[in-house]
């Protein structure tokens, strides 16, 4: 007599993995596999005309932070790379802050609407998010370019004589990123505010707290996990942004994404590009770990 249960269990397990084969095949070939190859490439020697030579080298990783003088062989920090790193981090943090300034009141506003209306308000936030990122970036570019709407309007009104150069500046990138990633801030804050128990707010007022005090001492602490989650959700894609700095920074204000592209184009240093990609990936993974802790902690607290 054979035991039936283990046989069925084994058969189930086999069926399960069979069902997973197509998805895993696609992902191994076009997601995780290539990522492993990037890791290998980051430890190879750059070829003269792009590509790599199959000789192990730490040069790629080395060049992320350091550069060697062409003539004197002197070692120094790679200022160009570091300033791009710094700009990426700075602009991404500012983007998160700007998105918070607009996103928090909006999420609060939606969370305090009647229950049956909230979904529709949220749909209004979500629609732009699902439309083409390039088009939304382009819409901002049209708004702020020298012959664009803002400048034309200001000149017609006589406020300025010469158009203000806004496009191809850091300001343009900041504006564009805050614009395209704003929904990512609103969504998690709304999720935490929607569950907020407003009797706590009422209790605050009954105890003679001002609106500002209630906001700071009651509402904000309860919304904090959502704010942290939203900030990370905005920070992460901003850090790796490629399209927005390319269209709005115009090749003058590079961010990490553009620096990486450069290594596979004119720079012709694939190992450096691979090492830069993995550096970006590492920063993003750390940020996402914080996100999981913020989001997970919230779930745990609400049961």
């Amino acid at each position, binding site marked *: 007599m054979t035991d039936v249960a283990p046989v069925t269990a084994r058969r189930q397990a086999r069926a399960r993995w069979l069902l997973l084969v197509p998805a895993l095949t696609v992902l191994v070939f076009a997601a995780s596999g290539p990522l492993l190859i990037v890791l290998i490439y980051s430890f190879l020697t750059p070829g003269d005309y792009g590509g790599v030579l199959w000789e192990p080298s730490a040069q790629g990783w080395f060049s992320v932070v350091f550069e060697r003088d062409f003539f004197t062989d002197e070692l120094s920090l790679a200022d160009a790379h570091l300033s791009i790193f710094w700009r990426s981090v700075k602009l991404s943090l500012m983007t998160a802050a700007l998105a918070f300034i607009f996103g928090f009141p909006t999420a609060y506003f939606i969370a305090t609407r009647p229950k049956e209306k909230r979904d529709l308000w949220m749909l209004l936030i979500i629609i732009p998010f699902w439309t*083409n990122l390039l088009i939304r970036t382009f819409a901002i570019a049209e708004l702020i370019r020298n012959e664009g709407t803002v400048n034309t309007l200001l000149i017609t009104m006589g406020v300025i004589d010469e158009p203000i150069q806004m496009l191809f500046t850091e300001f343009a990138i900041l504006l564009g990123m805050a614009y395209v990633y704003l929904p990512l801030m609103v969504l998690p804050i709304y999720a935490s505010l929607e569950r907020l128990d407003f009797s706590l707010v009422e209790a605050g007022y009954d105890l003679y707290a001002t609106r500002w005090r209630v906001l700071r001492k009651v509402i904000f602490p309860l919304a904090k996990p959502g704010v942290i989650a939203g900030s990370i959700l905005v920070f992460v894609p901003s850090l790796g942004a490629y399209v927005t700095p390319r269209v709005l920074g115009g090749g003058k204000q590079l961010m990490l994404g553009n620096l990486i592209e450069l290594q596979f184009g004119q720079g012709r240093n694939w190992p450096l590009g691979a090492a830069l990609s993995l550096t970006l990936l590492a920063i993003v993974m750390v940020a*996402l770990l914080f996100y999981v802790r913020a989001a997970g902690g919230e779930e745990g607290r609400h049961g």
Partner: protein
Amino acid sequence: MAKPFEVHRQTGFATMAGLCFVVLYLPIVLLVVYSFNQGDSIAIWEGFSWRWYVSAWDNEQVQAATVRSLVIAFWAALIATTCAVLAALATTRQERFRGYTFVFAMINQPLMVPEIVTAVALLIFFAMIKVQTGYTGLGYLILAHSAFCLPFAYMPIRARLQGMDLSLEQAAMDLYGTPWRVFRRITLPQLWPGILAGAMLAFVISLDDVVITEFVKSAGQDTLPTYMLGQMRRVVTPEVNAISTVLLAISVVMVVAFYFLSRTKKQPTGG
């Protein structure tokens, strides 16, 4: 008499929210409006005309890019959705199995890894294959799109499956239905809205992709978004606005349809 005290109100919040909605929609509205401009400007209105739509329609590069975009999006959505349905069947409505976390991480990898990193990885990997095989067709783009569309197709299908009752299928099994028959007659009809939602999402995501396509495409394989990206380097005419408007319209229709499709799941179903 003083106004009744409103506990929900915070000073200035409604104004900020209003401003936020204006800021979200104004640039898009302007973009659409100027696509109908008679003149060459994207900021000075010179009267209504279809001129730029006609010129985009007649532009051979735009035609080719449109067809290419649609072909890639169709195949990517089809492959991603098929894989996602099978994967969702394997990963929902059962106790956690060994390797679950691994599978989940694999499926969601395209969402977590920055697009530029995936793009570079695919560039390197496909360059190797191109050298080995000499094949330079659309297959690379379709494969790449299938992979990053997969999590988007997977999510609504999984959500739908999780909300489904196992008892109907068990009853059918008890009545000696073969697994395939049970799937086709019981599971699939209930799952259908989820599949449709997932496929639509995958289609839109593929249609909108810029970064990965820009890195993976061979010469002469522009899709609409990469064609537009190339155009933005030059002086832009409202023709780009016209193409954008059409793409926007497709996205909005799909998203709104998706919203209503995924909402029906909350209401009790008749069958």
